[in-house]
Protein backbone atom coordinates (compact mmCIF):
# COMPACT_ATOMS: atom_id res chain seq x y z
CA UNK A 1 0.00 0.00 0.00
CA UNK A 2 2.66 2.46 1.10
CA UNK A 3 4.89 1.31 -1.73
CA UNK A 4 2.10 1.73 -4.22
CA UNK A 5 1.56 5.34 -3.14
CA UNK A 6 5.28 6.01 -3.26
CA UNK A 7 5.40 4.43 -6.71
CA UNK A 8 2.55 6.61 -7.92
CA UNK A 9 4.21 9.71 -6.54
CA UNK A 10 7.54 8.94 -8.19
CA UNK A 11 5.83 8.24 -11.47
CA UNK A 12 3.72 11.43 -11.36
CA UNK A 13 6.73 13.47 -10.31
CA UNK A 14 8.66 12.07 -13.27
CA UNK A 15 5.77 12.86 -15.59
CA UNK A 16 5.58 16.42 -14.32
CA UNK A 17 9.31 16.91 -14.82
CA UNK A 18 9.16 15.52 -18.32
CA UNK A 19 6.19 17.79 -19.08
CA UNK A 20 8.15 20.80 -17.90
CA UNK A 21 11.30 19.70 -19.72
CA UNK A 22 9.46 19.24 -22.99
CA UNK A 23 7.99 22.75 -22.96
CA UNK A 24 10.29 25.07 -21.01
CA UNK A 25 9.33 28.12 -23.11
CA UNK A 26 5.73 27.61 -22.14
CA UNK A 27 6.39 27.86 -18.44
CA UNK A 28 8.53 30.91 -19.06
CA UNK A 29 5.77 32.52 -21.11
CA UNK A 30 3.10 31.82 -18.50
CA UNK A 31 5.34 33.09 -15.72
CA UNK A 32 6.00 36.45 -17.34
CA UNK A 33 2.58 36.94 -18.91
CA UNK A 34 1.12 36.79 -15.42
CA UNK A 35 3.35 39.60 -14.13
CA UNK A 36 3.09 41.67 -17.31
CA UNK A 37 -0.17 43.59 -16.59
CA UNK A 38 1.08 44.67 -13.17
CA UNK A 39 4.47 45.65 -14.56
CA UNK A 40 2.85 47.65 -17.38
CA UNK A 41 0.60 49.55 -14.98
CA UNK A 42 3.43 50.27 -12.53
CA UNK A 43 5.62 51.58 -15.34
CA UNK A 44 2.84 53.60 -16.96
CA UNK A 45 1.27 55.14 -13.87
CA UNK A 46 4.12 55.40 -11.38
CA UNK A 47 7.57 55.13 -12.98
CA UNK A 48 6.96 57.11 -16.15
CA UNK A 49 5.25 59.99 -14.25
CA UNK A 50 8.27 60.11 -11.94
CA UNK A 51 10.56 60.48 -14.94
CA UNK A 52 8.22 63.23 -16.17
CA UNK A 53 8.49 64.85 -12.73
CA UNK A 54 12.28 64.90 -12.95
CA UNK A 55 12.04 66.63 -16.32
CA UNK A 56 9.39 69.11 -15.11
CA UNK A 57 11.45 69.99 -12.06
CA UNK A 58 14.22 71.29 -14.31
CA UNK A 59 11.84 73.59 -16.20
CA UNK A 60 10.17 76.85 -15.35
CA UNK A 61 6.81 75.21 -15.95
CA UNK A 62 4.03 77.65 -15.21
CA UNK A 63 0.69 76.05 -16.02
CA UNK A 64 -0.66 79.38 -17.27
CA UNK A 65 2.10 80.03 -19.84
CA UNK A 66 2.83 78.12 -23.03
CA UNK A 67 6.59 77.69 -23.10
CA UNK A 68 8.55 76.10 -20.29
CA UNK A 69 12.18 77.25 -20.41
CA UNK A 70 14.95 75.06 -18.99
CA UNK A 71 16.30 76.49 -15.75
CA UNK A 72 18.49 73.67 -14.44
CA UNK A 73 18.40 73.19 -10.70
CA UNK A 74 16.95 76.64 -9.96
CA UNK A 75 13.70 75.16 -8.60
CA UNK A 76 15.62 73.00 -6.13
CA UNK A 77 17.83 75.89 -5.16
CA UNK A 78 14.87 78.15 -4.51
CA UNK A 79 13.08 75.45 -2.46
CA UNK A 80 16.02 74.64 -0.25
CA UNK A 81 17.60 78.05 0.21
CA UNK A 82 14.99 80.76 -0.34
CA UNK A 83 11.56 79.31 0.32
CA UNK A 84 11.04 79.78 4.04
CA UNK A 85 7.50 78.42 3.67
CA UNK A 86 8.78 75.10 2.32
CA UNK A 87 11.35 74.79 5.11
CA UNK A 88 8.72 75.70 7.69
CA UNK A 89 6.35 73.09 6.23
CA UNK A 90 9.04 70.44 6.40
CA UNK A 91 9.66 71.33 10.05
CA UNK A 92 5.94 71.39 10.76
CA UNK A 93 5.55 67.98 9.14
CA UNK A 94 8.24 66.68 11.49
CA UNK A 95 6.87 68.33 14.64
CA UNK A 96 3.18 67.60 14.08
CA UNK A 97 3.91 64.13 12.77
CA UNK A 98 6.25 63.41 15.68
CA UNK A 99 3.69 64.60 18.22
CA UNK A 100 0.92 62.50 16.67
CA UNK A 101 3.18 59.45 16.48
CA UNK A 102 4.25 59.80 20.12
CA UNK A 103 0.68 60.14 21.42
CA UNK A 104 -0.61 57.31 19.25
CA UNK A 105 2.21 55.04 20.33
CA UNK A 106 1.81 55.63 24.07
CA UNK A 107 -2.00 55.48 24.01
CA UNK A 108 -2.03 52.47 21.70
CA UNK A 109 0.48 50.57 23.84
CA UNK A 110 -1.43 51.37 27.03
CA UNK A 111 -4.67 50.12 25.49
CA UNK A 112 -2.97 46.99 24.17
CA UNK A 113 -1.64 46.16 27.65
CA UNK A 114 -5.07 46.79 29.18
CA UNK A 115 -6.67 44.41 26.70
CA UNK A 116 -4.42 41.47 27.65
CA UNK A 117 -6.20 38.68 29.44
CA UNK A 118 -9.89 37.84 29.37
CA UNK A 119 -12.57 40.20 30.63
CA UNK A 120 -16.29 40.56 29.96
CA UNK A 121 -17.17 42.54 26.83
CA UNK A 122 -13.70 42.28 25.30
CA UNK A 123 -14.83 41.33 21.78
CA UNK A 124 -17.43 44.04 21.31
CA UNK A 125 -15.17 46.68 22.89
CA UNK A 126 -12.34 45.78 20.51
CA UNK A 127 -14.67 46.04 17.53
CA UNK A 128 -15.98 49.44 18.61
CA UNK A 129 -12.50 50.83 19.32
CA UNK A 130 -11.25 49.81 15.86
CA UNK A 131 -13.93 51.73 13.92
CA UNK A 132 -12.04 55.05 13.45
CA UNK A 133 -9.29 53.61 11.24
CA UNK A 134 -11.95 52.48 8.76
CA UNK A 135 -13.66 55.88 8.52
CA UNK A 136 -12.65 57.71 5.33
CA UNK A 137 -10.10 60.45 6.17
CA UNK A 138 -12.29 63.03 4.43
CA UNK A 139 -15.13 62.23 6.83
CA UNK A 140 -12.74 62.48 9.78
CA UNK A 141 -11.64 65.95 8.66
CA UNK A 142 -15.21 67.09 8.06
CA UNK A 143 -16.31 65.85 11.49
CA UNK A 144 -13.41 67.67 13.12
CA UNK A 145 -14.48 70.88 11.38
CA UNK A 146 -18.01 70.42 12.76
CA UNK A 147 -16.80 69.54 16.23
CA UNK A 148 -14.26 72.32 16.75
CA UNK A 149 -16.07 75.26 15.17
CA UNK A 150 -16.31 77.73 18.00
CA UNK A 151 -19.90 78.82 18.37
CA UNK A 152 -21.75 75.66 17.39
CA UNK A 153 -19.31 72.76 17.58
CA UNK A 154 -19.67 70.34 20.46
CA UNK A 155 -16.09 70.32 21.75
CA UNK A 156 -16.18 73.69 23.52
CA UNK A 157 -19.50 73.05 25.37
CA UNK A 158 -18.41 69.57 26.43
CA UNK A 159 -15.06 70.86 27.71
CA UNK A 160 -16.86 73.65 29.57
CA UNK A 161 -19.12 71.10 31.22
CA UNK A 162 -16.18 68.94 32.27
CA UNK A 163 -13.90 71.76 33.44
CA UNK A 164 -16.76 73.83 34.88
CA UNK A 165 -15.45 77.10 33.54
CA UNK A 166 -15.97 79.10 30.38
CA UNK A 167 -13.60 78.48 27.50
CA UNK A 168 -13.15 80.91 24.65
CA UNK A 169 -10.71 79.24 22.27
CA UNK A 170 -11.22 79.59 18.56
CA UNK A 171 -9.72 76.16 17.87
CA UNK A 172 -9.53 76.22 14.11
CA UNK A 173 -8.58 79.86 13.56
CA UNK A 174 -6.01 80.14 16.32
CA UNK A 175 -2.56 79.29 14.89
CA UNK A 176 -1.54 77.90 18.28
CA UNK A 177 -4.44 75.48 18.59
CA UNK A 178 -5.14 74.46 14.99
CA UNK A 179 -2.02 72.25 14.73
CA UNK A 180 -3.02 70.58 18.01
CA UNK A 181 -6.46 69.86 16.53
CA UNK A 182 -4.85 68.20 13.51
CA UNK A 183 -2.65 66.10 15.81
CA UNK A 184 -5.69 65.18 17.90
CA UNK A 185 -7.81 64.03 14.97
CA UNK A 186 -4.94 61.97 13.59
CA UNK A 187 -4.70 60.41 17.04
CA UNK A 188 -8.42 59.68 16.92
CA UNK A 189 -8.11 58.01 13.56
CA UNK A 190 -4.92 55.99 13.97
CA UNK A 191 -4.47 55.06 17.65
CA UNK A 192 -6.72 52.03 16.94
CA UNK A 193 -4.24 50.88 14.30
CA UNK A 194 -1.28 51.16 16.68
CA UNK A 195 -3.33 49.40 19.34
CA UNK A 196 -4.25 46.59 16.95
CA UNK A 197 -0.67 45.90 15.86
CA UNK A 198 0.86 46.11 19.32
CA UNK A 199 -1.91 43.95 20.76
CA UNK A 200 -1.26 41.28 18.12
CA UNK A 201 2.44 41.53 18.89
CA UNK A 202 1.83 41.08 22.63
CA UNK A 203 -0.32 38.01 22.01
CA UNK A 204 2.45 36.42 19.96
CA UNK A 205 5.10 36.73 22.73
CA UNK A 206 6.38 33.50 24.27
CA UNK A 207 5.38 32.84 27.88
CA UNK A 208 8.62 31.46 29.36
CA UNK A 209 10.46 34.74 30.06
CA UNK A 210 7.40 36.10 31.84
CA UNK A 211 7.14 32.97 34.00
CA UNK A 212 10.83 33.25 34.87
CA UNK A 213 10.45 36.94 35.74
CA UNK A 214 7.47 36.17 37.98
CA UNK A 215 9.39 33.42 39.79
CA UNK A 216 12.33 35.80 40.28
CA UNK A 217 9.95 38.37 41.78
CA UNK A 218 10.26 41.06 39.12
CA UNK A 219 7.89 44.02 39.41
CA UNK A 220 5.39 44.79 36.67
CA UNK A 221 7.49 47.71 35.49
CA UNK A 222 10.69 45.65 35.39
CA UNK A 223 8.94 42.93 33.44
CA UNK A 224 7.67 45.51 30.96
CA UNK A 225 11.02 47.25 30.43
CA UNK A 226 13.29 44.20 30.40
CA UNK A 227 11.09 41.55 28.84
CA UNK A 228 8.08 42.97 26.99
CA UNK A 229 9.82 45.86 25.20
CA UNK A 230 12.87 43.95 23.93
CA UNK A 231 10.69 41.12 22.67
CA UNK A 232 8.43 43.62 20.90
CA UNK A 233 11.28 45.36 19.02
CA UNK A 234 10.28 44.14 15.60
CA UNK A 235 6.58 44.98 15.95
CA UNK A 236 7.45 48.40 17.35
CA UNK A 237 9.72 49.04 14.38
CA UNK A 238 6.96 48.15 11.95
CA UNK A 239 4.40 50.34 13.74
CA UNK A 240 6.71 53.36 13.83
CA UNK A 241 7.72 52.94 10.21
CA UNK A 242 4.19 52.56 8.82
CA UNK A 243 2.83 55.44 10.91
CA UNK A 244 5.70 57.83 10.05
CA UNK A 245 5.32 57.19 6.34
CA UNK A 246 1.56 57.78 6.63
CA UNK A 247 2.00 60.96 8.68
CA UNK A 248 4.43 62.45 6.17
CA UNK A 249 1.81 62.24 3.43
CA UNK A 250 -1.06 63.58 5.56
CA UNK A 251 -3.40 65.52 3.29
CA UNK A 252 -7.10 64.63 3.44
CA UNK A 253 -7.86 65.43 7.07
CA UNK A 254 -5.91 68.70 6.94
CA UNK A 255 -7.68 69.90 3.81
CA UNK A 256 -11.12 69.16 5.26
CA UNK A 257 -10.53 70.34 8.82
CA UNK A 258 -8.50 73.52 8.37
CA UNK A 259 -7.57 73.89 4.67
CA UNK A 260 -3.99 74.09 5.97
CA UNK A 261 -4.94 77.30 7.78
CA UNK A 262 -5.25 79.63 9.55
CA UNK A 263 -2.72 81.10 7.11
CA UNK A 264 -0.38 78.16 6.75
CA UNK A 265 -0.41 77.18 10.44
CA UNK A 266 -1.35 73.55 9.71
CA UNK A 267 0.29 73.20 6.31
CA UNK A 268 2.33 70.03 6.00
CA UNK A 269 4.28 68.93 2.96
CA UNK A 270 1.47 67.35 0.88
CA UNK A 271 -0.86 70.36 1.12
CA UNK A 272 2.15 72.53 0.19
CA UNK A 273 2.69 70.61 -3.05
CA UNK A 274 -1.04 70.79 -3.83
CA UNK A 275 -1.18 74.51 -3.14
CA UNK A 276 1.92 75.37 -5.21
CA UNK A 277 0.54 73.37 -8.13
CA UNK A 278 -3.12 74.39 -8.05
CA UNK A 279 -3.14 77.86 -6.49
CA UNK A 280 0.13 79.23 -7.88
CA UNK A 281 0.13 76.93 -10.98
CA UNK A 282 3.89 76.43 -10.61
CA UNK A 283 4.04 72.83 -11.87
CA UNK A 284 7.83 72.68 -12.23
CA UNK A 285 8.32 73.98 -8.72
CA UNK A 286 5.77 71.51 -7.32
CA UNK A 287 7.50 68.66 -9.16
CA UNK A 288 10.82 69.63 -7.57
CA UNK A 289 9.18 69.65 -4.13
CA UNK A 290 7.66 66.23 -4.89
CA UNK A 291 11.05 64.77 -5.70
CA UNK A 292 12.63 66.24 -2.56
CA UNK A 293 9.78 64.64 -0.60
CA UNK A 294 10.39 61.26 -2.25
CA UNK A 295 14.10 61.40 -1.47
CA UNK A 296 13.32 62.40 2.13
CA UNK A 297 10.94 59.45 2.47
CA UNK A 298 13.52 57.01 1.23
CA UNK A 299 16.11 58.49 3.59
CA UNK A 300 13.77 58.27 6.57
CA UNK A 301 12.80 54.69 5.72
CA UNK A 302 16.39 53.52 5.58
CA UNK A 303 17.27 55.56 8.70
CA UNK A 304 14.46 54.03 10.77
CA UNK A 305 15.27 50.55 9.52
CA UNK A 306 18.97 51.00 10.23
CA UNK A 307 18.76 52.55 13.72
CA UNK A 308 15.90 50.45 15.00
CA UNK A 309 16.94 47.48 12.88
CA UNK A 310 20.28 47.37 14.66
CA UNK A 311 18.52 47.03 18.01
CA UNK A 312 16.25 44.42 16.47
CA UNK A 313 19.22 42.37 15.39
CA UNK A 314 21.46 43.08 18.39
Amino acid at each position, binding site marked *: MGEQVAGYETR*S*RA*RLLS*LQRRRPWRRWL*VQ*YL*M*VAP*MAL*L*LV*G*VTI*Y*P*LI*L*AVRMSLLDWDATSIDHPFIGLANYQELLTQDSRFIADLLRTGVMGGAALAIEFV*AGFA*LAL*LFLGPFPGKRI*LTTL*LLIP*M*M*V*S*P*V*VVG*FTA*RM*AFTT*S*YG*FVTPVLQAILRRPISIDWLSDPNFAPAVIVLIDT*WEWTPFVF*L*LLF*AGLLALSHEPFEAARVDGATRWQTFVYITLPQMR*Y*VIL*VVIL*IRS*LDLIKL*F*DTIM*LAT*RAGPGIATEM*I*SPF*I*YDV*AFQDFRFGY*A*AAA*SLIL*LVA*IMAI*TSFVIRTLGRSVVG
Partner: protein
Amino acid sequence: MSTSTVGLHDRASRLRRKRLGMATLMALRYAVIAVALAFTLVPLLWILSTSLKGPDQWQHDPPIWIPSPFTFDNFRQMWTDGGAAALLHSCVTVGVSTITATILGALASYSMSRFHTGGRNFASWVLSVKFLPPAAFIVPLLTWFQTLGLLDSYLGLILTYTTFNLPFAVWMLKGFFDEVPVELDDSALVDGCSRLGVIWRITLPVAAGGLVTTLLLTLIFNWGEYIFALVLTRSDMYTVPVRLSDYFSEATGLQWGPQAALALVAILPIIAIAIFIQRYLVRAMAFGAVKG
Protein backbone atom coordinates in the same frame (compact mmCIF):
# COMPACT_ATOMS: atom_id res chain seq x y z
CA MET B 1 -2.07 23.01 64.61
CA SER B 2 -1.82 26.66 65.54
CA THR B 3 0.95 27.33 63.01
CA SER B 4 -1.11 25.85 60.19
CA THR B 5 -4.09 28.03 61.22
CA VAL B 6 -1.85 31.08 61.08
CA GLY B 7 -0.60 29.92 57.71
CA LEU B 8 -4.13 29.50 56.45
CA HIS B 9 -5.14 32.87 57.79
CA ASP B 10 -2.10 34.41 56.21
CA ARG B 11 -2.84 32.84 52.88
CA ALA B 12 -6.49 33.90 53.02
CA SER B 13 -5.56 37.52 53.65
CA ARG B 14 -3.00 37.43 50.89
CA LEU B 15 -5.65 36.02 48.58
CA ARG B 16 -8.03 38.78 49.65
CA ARG B 17 -5.40 41.39 49.01
CA LYS B 18 -4.70 39.88 45.60
CA ARG B 19 -8.40 39.88 44.79
CA LEU B 20 -8.62 43.50 45.86
CA GLY B 21 -5.68 44.26 43.56
CA MET B 22 -7.42 42.44 40.72
CA ALA B 23 -10.61 44.39 41.39
CA THR B 24 -8.73 47.69 41.29
CA LEU B 25 -7.06 46.64 38.06
CA MET B 26 -10.42 45.67 36.57
CA ALA B 27 -11.93 49.02 37.59
CA LEU B 28 -8.96 50.89 36.14
CA ARG B 29 -9.19 48.87 32.96
CA TYR B 30 -12.87 49.63 32.47
CA ALA B 31 -12.38 53.29 33.35
CA VAL B 32 -9.65 53.77 30.74
CA ILE B 33 -11.59 51.81 28.14
CA ALA B 34 -14.72 53.86 28.87
CA VAL B 35 -12.81 57.09 28.21
CA ALA B 36 -11.32 55.68 25.00
CA LEU B 37 -14.74 54.50 23.90
CA ALA B 38 -16.35 57.88 24.49
CA PHE B 39 -13.50 59.57 22.60
CA THR B 40 -14.04 57.11 19.74
CA LEU B 41 -17.81 57.09 19.48
CA VAL B 42 -18.93 60.66 20.24
CA PRO B 43 -17.73 62.11 16.90
CA LEU B 44 -19.45 59.28 15.02
CA LEU B 45 -22.69 59.81 16.93
CA TRP B 46 -22.41 63.51 16.14
CA ILE B 47 -22.39 62.73 12.40
CA LEU B 48 -25.48 60.56 12.88
CA SER B 49 -27.22 63.22 14.94
CA THR B 50 -26.41 66.06 12.53
CA SER B 51 -27.64 64.06 9.55
CA LEU B 52 -31.08 63.79 11.19
CA LYS B 53 -31.40 67.45 12.24
CA GLY B 54 -33.36 70.23 10.58
CA PRO B 55 -31.48 73.36 9.33
CA ASP B 56 -32.31 75.32 12.49
CA GLN B 57 -30.49 72.77 14.63
CA TRP B 58 -27.27 72.18 12.62
CA GLN B 59 -25.55 75.14 14.19
CA HIS B 60 -27.48 75.48 17.41
CA ASP B 61 -25.75 76.89 20.46
CA PRO B 62 -25.66 74.99 22.81
CA PRO B 63 -25.35 71.87 20.64
CA ILE B 64 -28.39 69.65 20.26
CA TRP B 65 -27.54 65.97 20.67
CA ILE B 66 -30.89 64.36 19.95
CA PRO B 67 -32.59 65.95 16.96
CA SER B 68 -36.21 66.88 17.47
CA PRO B 69 -38.04 66.30 15.29
CA PHE B 70 -36.12 63.64 13.36
CA THR B 71 -35.99 64.50 9.69
CA PHE B 72 -34.74 62.68 6.62
CA ASP B 73 -34.75 65.85 4.50
CA ASN B 74 -30.94 65.96 4.61
CA PHE B 75 -30.68 62.60 2.90
CA ARG B 76 -33.18 63.65 0.26
CA GLN B 77 -31.35 66.94 -0.37
CA MET B 78 -27.93 65.25 -0.41
CA TRP B 79 -29.20 62.69 -2.91
CA THR B 80 -30.56 65.19 -5.44
CA ASP B 81 -27.75 67.67 -4.83
CA GLY B 82 -24.96 65.63 -6.44
CA GLY B 83 -24.85 62.87 -3.85
CA ALA B 84 -26.45 60.27 -6.13
CA ALA B 85 -24.02 61.10 -8.95
CA ALA B 86 -21.07 60.99 -6.56
CA LEU B 87 -22.17 57.61 -5.22
CA LEU B 88 -22.54 56.29 -8.77
CA HIS B 89 -19.08 57.55 -9.77
CA SER B 90 -17.54 56.14 -6.63
CA CYS B 91 -19.25 52.77 -6.99
CA VAL B 92 -18.17 52.31 -10.62
CA THR B 93 -14.60 53.56 -10.12
CA VAL B 94 -14.01 51.75 -6.85
CA GLY B 95 -15.81 48.58 -7.97
CA VAL B 96 -13.96 48.16 -11.25
CA SER B 97 -10.53 49.12 -9.92
CA THR B 98 -10.88 46.93 -6.82
CA ILE B 99 -11.76 43.86 -8.86
CA THR B 100 -9.09 44.60 -11.48
CA ALA B 101 -6.40 45.15 -8.86
CA THR B 102 -7.32 41.90 -7.15
CA ILE B 103 -7.29 39.86 -10.39
CA LEU B 104 -4.05 41.36 -11.72
CA GLY B 105 -2.55 41.13 -8.24
CA ALA B 106 -3.53 37.46 -8.01
CA LEU B 107 -1.90 36.66 -11.36
CA ALA B 108 1.31 38.50 -10.51
CA SER B 109 1.57 37.13 -7.00
CA TYR B 110 0.93 33.56 -8.18
CA SER B 111 3.81 33.94 -10.59
CA MET B 112 5.98 35.44 -7.85
CA SER B 113 4.98 32.80 -5.34
CA ARG B 114 5.45 29.75 -7.60
CA PHE B 115 8.20 30.79 -10.02
CA HIS B 116 9.97 33.37 -7.83
CA THR B 117 9.58 35.87 -10.66
CA GLY B 118 11.79 38.91 -10.21
CA GLY B 119 13.77 37.41 -7.35
CA ARG B 120 13.13 37.12 -3.63
CA ASN B 121 12.81 40.84 -2.90
CA PHE B 122 10.56 41.75 -5.80
CA ALA B 123 7.44 41.75 -3.63
CA SER B 124 9.02 44.13 -1.09
CA TRP B 125 10.16 46.34 -3.91
CA VAL B 126 6.66 46.46 -5.33
CA LEU B 127 5.20 47.11 -1.88
CA SER B 128 7.40 50.19 -1.43
CA VAL B 129 5.20 51.95 -4.00
CA LYS B 130 2.40 51.92 -1.43
CA PHE B 131 4.45 54.09 0.90
CA LEU B 132 5.19 56.81 -1.63
CA PRO B 133 3.08 59.91 -0.98
CA PRO B 134 0.31 60.39 -3.59
CA ALA B 135 0.92 64.15 -3.42
CA ALA B 136 4.27 63.57 -5.11
CA PHE B 137 2.50 62.05 -8.11
CA ILE B 138 -0.33 64.52 -8.66
CA VAL B 139 1.54 67.04 -10.84
CA PRO B 140 3.24 64.63 -13.28
CA LEU B 141 0.16 62.36 -13.38
CA LEU B 142 -2.06 65.33 -14.24
CA THR B 143 0.09 66.41 -17.20
CA TRP B 144 0.57 62.79 -18.35
CA PHE B 145 -3.17 62.08 -18.24
CA GLN B 146 -3.87 65.37 -19.96
CA THR B 147 -1.66 64.24 -22.83
CA LEU B 148 -3.50 60.91 -22.95
CA GLY B 149 -6.92 62.54 -22.66
CA LEU B 150 -7.71 60.61 -19.48
CA LEU B 151 -8.71 63.52 -17.26
CA ASP B 152 -12.25 63.59 -15.92
CA SER B 153 -12.90 60.03 -17.10
CA TYR B 154 -13.71 56.75 -15.47
CA LEU B 155 -10.74 55.14 -17.18
CA GLY B 156 -8.17 57.58 -15.81
CA LEU B 157 -9.32 57.19 -12.24
CA ILE B 158 -9.67 53.42 -12.57
CA LEU B 159 -6.12 53.09 -13.95
CA THR B 160 -4.77 55.18 -11.07
CA TYR B 161 -6.67 53.32 -8.35
CA THR B 162 -5.79 49.93 -9.81
CA THR B 163 -2.09 50.75 -10.02
CA PHE B 164 -1.72 52.27 -6.57
CA ASN B 165 -3.52 49.32 -4.96
CA LEU B 166 -1.69 46.60 -6.87
CA PRO B 167 1.34 46.63 -4.53
CA PHE B 168 -0.85 45.99 -1.51
CA ALA B 169 -2.86 43.28 -3.29
CA VAL B 170 0.31 41.56 -4.48
CA TRP B 171 1.86 41.65 -1.03
CA MET B 172 -1.23 40.23 0.64
CA LEU B 173 -1.98 37.57 -1.95
CA LYS B 174 1.61 36.38 -2.23
CA GLY B 175 1.53 35.71 1.50
CA PHE B 176 -1.66 33.71 1.16
CA PHE B 177 -0.48 31.81 -1.94
CA ASP B 178 2.80 30.89 -0.27
CA GLU B 179 0.75 28.95 2.27
CA VAL B 180 -0.99 26.82 -0.36
CA PRO B 181 1.15 23.66 -0.80
CA VAL B 182 2.90 23.45 -4.19
CA GLU B 183 2.09 19.70 -4.27
CA LEU B 184 -1.55 20.60 -4.96
CA ASP B 185 -0.51 22.50 -8.11
CA ASP B 186 1.80 19.71 -9.23
CA SER B 187 -0.75 16.93 -8.93
CA ALA B 188 -3.32 18.99 -10.87
CA LEU B 189 -0.74 19.72 -13.60
CA VAL B 190 0.07 16.01 -13.86
CA ASP B 191 -3.62 15.32 -14.24
CA GLY B 192 -3.61 17.57 -17.29
CA CYS B 193 -4.82 20.85 -15.82
CA SER B 194 -3.50 24.11 -17.33
CA ARG B 195 -1.81 26.80 -15.21
CA LEU B 196 -4.84 29.07 -15.30
CA GLY B 197 -6.96 26.02 -14.50
CA VAL B 198 -4.76 25.32 -11.47
CA ILE B 199 -5.13 28.89 -10.22
CA TRP B 200 -8.87 28.95 -10.82
CA ARG B 201 -9.71 25.47 -9.47
CA ILE B 202 -7.07 24.93 -6.78
CA THR B 203 -5.16 27.99 -5.56
CA LEU B 204 -7.95 30.55 -5.45
CA PRO B 205 -10.48 28.28 -3.68
CA VAL B 206 -7.87 27.22 -1.11
CA ALA B 207 -6.83 30.84 -0.51
CA ALA B 208 -10.42 32.14 -0.72
CA GLY B 209 -10.34 33.80 2.71
CA GLY B 210 -7.22 35.73 1.78
CA LEU B 211 -8.67 36.72 -1.56
CA VAL B 212 -11.85 38.13 0.01
CA THR B 213 -9.85 40.01 2.66
CA THR B 214 -7.60 41.55 0.02
CA LEU B 215 -10.59 42.54 -2.08
CA LEU B 216 -12.43 44.19 0.80
CA LEU B 217 -9.38 46.05 2.13
CA THR B 218 -8.60 47.36 -1.35
CA LEU B 219 -12.23 48.46 -1.54
CA ILE B 220 -11.90 50.38 1.74
CA PHE B 221 -8.69 52.13 0.62
CA ASN B 222 -10.21 53.08 -2.74
CA TRP B 223 -13.50 54.25 -1.27
CA GLY B 224 -11.82 56.88 0.91
CA GLU B 225 -9.27 58.03 -1.69
CA TYR B 226 -9.30 61.81 -2.04
CA ILE B 227 -6.26 63.51 -3.54
CA PHE B 228 -6.14 61.66 -6.90
CA ALA B 229 -9.87 62.09 -7.38
CA LEU B 230 -9.54 65.78 -6.52
CA VAL B 231 -6.78 66.39 -9.06
CA LEU B 232 -7.71 64.02 -11.89
CA THR B 233 -11.41 64.91 -12.05
CA ARG B 234 -12.88 68.33 -12.58
CA SER B 235 -16.56 68.96 -12.85
CA ASP B 236 -18.24 65.80 -14.09
CA MET B 237 -16.51 62.87 -12.48
CA TYR B 238 -16.52 63.79 -8.78
CA THR B 239 -16.43 60.91 -6.30
CA VAL B 240 -17.96 60.84 -2.81
CA PRO B 241 -14.90 62.27 -0.97
CA VAL B 242 -14.64 65.10 -3.54
CA ARG B 243 -18.35 65.88 -3.25
CA LEU B 244 -18.03 65.88 0.52
CA SER B 245 -15.21 68.42 0.45
CA ASP B 246 -17.02 70.54 -2.15
CA TYR B 247 -19.71 71.40 0.39
CA PHE B 248 -17.22 73.74 2.05
CA SER B 249 -16.73 75.85 -1.06
CA GLU B 250 -20.38 76.32 -1.91
CA ALA B 251 -21.98 79.72 -2.19
CA THR B 252 -25.07 78.64 -0.24
CA GLY B 253 -23.14 78.59 3.01
CA LEU B 254 -22.58 75.61 5.27
CA GLN B 255 -24.91 72.71 4.57
CA TRP B 256 -24.01 70.57 7.55
CA GLY B 257 -27.11 68.39 7.48
CA PRO B 258 -26.75 67.11 3.90
CA GLN B 259 -22.98 66.94 4.28
CA ALA B 260 -23.32 64.78 7.39
CA ALA B 261 -25.90 62.64 5.58
CA LEU B 262 -23.44 61.98 2.75
CA ALA B 263 -20.65 61.29 5.27
CA LEU B 264 -22.86 58.77 7.04
CA VAL B 265 -23.81 57.01 3.80
CA ALA B 266 -20.11 56.94 2.91
CA ILE B 267 -18.91 55.29 6.11
CA LEU B 268 -21.69 52.90 7.16
CA PRO B 269 -21.04 50.17 4.54
CA ILE B 270 -17.30 50.43 5.16
CA ILE B 271 -17.71 49.99 8.90
CA ALA B 272 -19.92 46.95 8.26
CA ILE B 273 -17.25 45.43 6.01
CA ALA B 274 -14.51 46.20 8.52
CA ILE B 275 -16.36 44.39 11.29
CA PHE B 276 -16.86 41.45 8.94
CA ILE B 277 -13.13 41.06 8.20
CA GLN B 278 -11.91 42.12 11.63
CA ARG B 279 -9.98 38.97 12.36
CA TYR B 280 -7.84 39.39 9.25
CA LEU B 281 -7.15 43.04 9.96
CA VAL B 282 -3.94 42.62 11.95
CA ARG B 283 -2.20 40.64 9.30
CA ALA B 284 -3.44 42.90 6.55
CA MET B 285 -2.55 46.16 8.23
CA ALA B 286 0.92 45.04 9.26
CA PHE B 287 1.75 43.76 5.76
CA GLY B 288 2.51 40.35 7.17
CA ALA B 289 5.09 41.72 9.60
CA VAL B 290 2.88 40.64 12.49
CA LYS B 291 1.06 37.37 12.13
CA GLY B 292 -2.41 37.81 13.55
